[in-house]
């Protein structure tokens, strides 16, 4: 296993990035010089890194570093709110389209890339309706197909056994951890190309967290996953690649083992050892 990545070296004073990747393994998407502005304020500064196909990529960093902003840029969630601007590219493969390009319809992206949010947010409907939602939105209504996918997604989310007898009951009857797994099933049902997880366990207790981490590792060989987490140990446990961010910049990107045992950047080192953040 050769460490073929060279991390992005950046002088925080300048904005000239140097990106030079030799990519190790197939890549599902490539973030290239991505900058993002909330109105006048720049929240992402020239971020570049690869997202490997069917691997788990973790984004870590102190709060305010831009990791959630970056994640939400990938499925164009920022477009829901006015005054936001993207610069740079996020190329999705194999289509080779620029996710953040103005010519690309955000809805198209969200039909390919799913998201699970920090606080579980099931719809005020039944469990079945929640999981089927993504299919109905895509015009897939054939009952046998939908039933199959719902079952499959709930199994993938490790929730099937717990809810199979009460699919038609309200999703709000589930516990927090179960609701989050439901949201994961909901995102999985339409078989997305990529799954974005925005601190999926920060609102949950340790046991629910452990279950979801297990679930993520089981899913990893089938779905490309990008996960934002403020919990370093979680990143170390479940991800293949880790990106450390600070103040809107991508400080270092590498295979997880390398980041945590021999980080190249001083700031990464400081964060990992708990000097700040």
């Amino acid at each position: 296993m050769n460490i073929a990545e060279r991390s992005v070296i950046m002088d925080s004073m300048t904005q000239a990035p140097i990106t030079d990747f030799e990519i190790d393994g197939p890549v599902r998407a490539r973030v290239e010089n991505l900058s993002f502005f909330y109105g006048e304020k720049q929240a992402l500064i020239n971020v570049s890194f690869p997202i490997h196909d069917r691997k788990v990529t973790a984004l870590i960093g102190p709060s305010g570093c831009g990791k959630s902003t970056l994640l939400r840029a990938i499925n164009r969630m920022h477009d829901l709110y006015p005054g936001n601007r993207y610069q740079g590219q996020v190329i999705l493969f194999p289509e080779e389209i620029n996710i953040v390009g103005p010519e690309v319809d955000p809805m198209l992206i969200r039909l390919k890339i799913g998201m699970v949010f920090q606080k579980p947010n099931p719809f005020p409907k039944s469990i079945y309706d929640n999981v089927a939602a993504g299919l109905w939105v895509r015009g897939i209504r054939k009952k046998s197909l939908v039933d199959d996918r719902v079952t499959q997604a709930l199994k993938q989310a490790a929730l099937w056994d717990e809810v199979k007898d009460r699919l038609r009951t309200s999703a709000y009857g589930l516990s927090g951890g179960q609701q989050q797994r439901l949201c994961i099933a909901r995102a999985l049902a339409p078989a997305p190309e990529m799954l974005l997880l925005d601190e999926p366990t920060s609102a949950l207790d340790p046991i629910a967290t452990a279950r979801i981490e297990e679930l993520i590792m089981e899913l990893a060989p089938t779905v490309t996953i990008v996960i934002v987490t403020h919990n370093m140990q979680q990143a170390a446990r479940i991800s293949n690649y880790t990106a450390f961010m600070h103040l809107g910049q991508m400080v270092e990107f590498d295979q997880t083992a390398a980041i945590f045992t021999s980080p190249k950047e001083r700031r990464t080192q400081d964060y990992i050892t708990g000097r700040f953040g």
Partner: protein
Amino acid sequence: MATVELAQASATRTSYGRLVASDRFLKRRAITARIVSFFLFLAAALSVFITAAIVYILVYDSVLFFKEVSIVDFLTDTEWTPVFEKPKFGIITLVSGTLMTTFIGLLVAVPAGTILSIYLSEYAGHTTREIVKPILELLAGVPTVAFGYFALFFLTPIFQIFIPNLSGFNLLVPGIVIGVMILPYIVSVAEDAMRAVPDSLREGAFALGFTRFQTAARVVIPGAFSGVTAAYLLGMSRAVGETMVVAIAAGQQATIAINPLEGAATITAYIVQISLGDVPHNSLAYLTIFVAGLTLFLMTLVFNLIAFWLRKKYREVY
């Protein structure tokens, strides 16, 4: 650059056929979206059309009216006798009736409303508020005809006991009833404004040793000033536009209203009177209802716009 390879599609995708949204579906969805947003826009734009229609009709008929009647006469004449042989069209007559009832109404509703709003916002506990606000809502829901009946058949006789020369049709009783009618509106808007004043200001006052009353008077009301003024203006606008109570209990006498113990016609009561009658549709007298309506519309428009601006202002502050 490095090569990019993609592994074969995963098992979850191929075994269930196409799960991507078909192009046909996406096209259909896009078309539906366009059609829907067009109709939704039409619905919203209807409100502009309504205002335009109101303005057009009132202005058009008023212009026809003013072809025959000089605007100077209109504004300065002191009699309003459109159906007479030699008709007179002094709008001041009707306006004075409207203003008198509005004034009496505000005399009742402004103090009562302010006191009640302060009480609800600063003194009352949660349960009291949960009981009082619905009652005020129920009060606001009573049909105006019912208030008219109440004014004429219940209140006027009672008032006549205490005020012997109160005539059967007068302006005092309808004025008071109008005050009761606009009370819920004033309380609702003013209390909203007072609650919008942040607690931190109140705490500062209490920490200095202010009483509740002093806090209310010196901190909350000044802080909620624009909202409270907006409440008064809205109440005034509603009082000016009130029709049935005055049509029933204030009489039809079109004189300049100086004495509230006597009846007088208001703008609104006059419109009702003509609408009920046999005035031919092309006559000058008929056009007068539109001129009266225009006067009414302009009055309430001014009050409403000022109130709107004031409410926007206080919402921005906090």
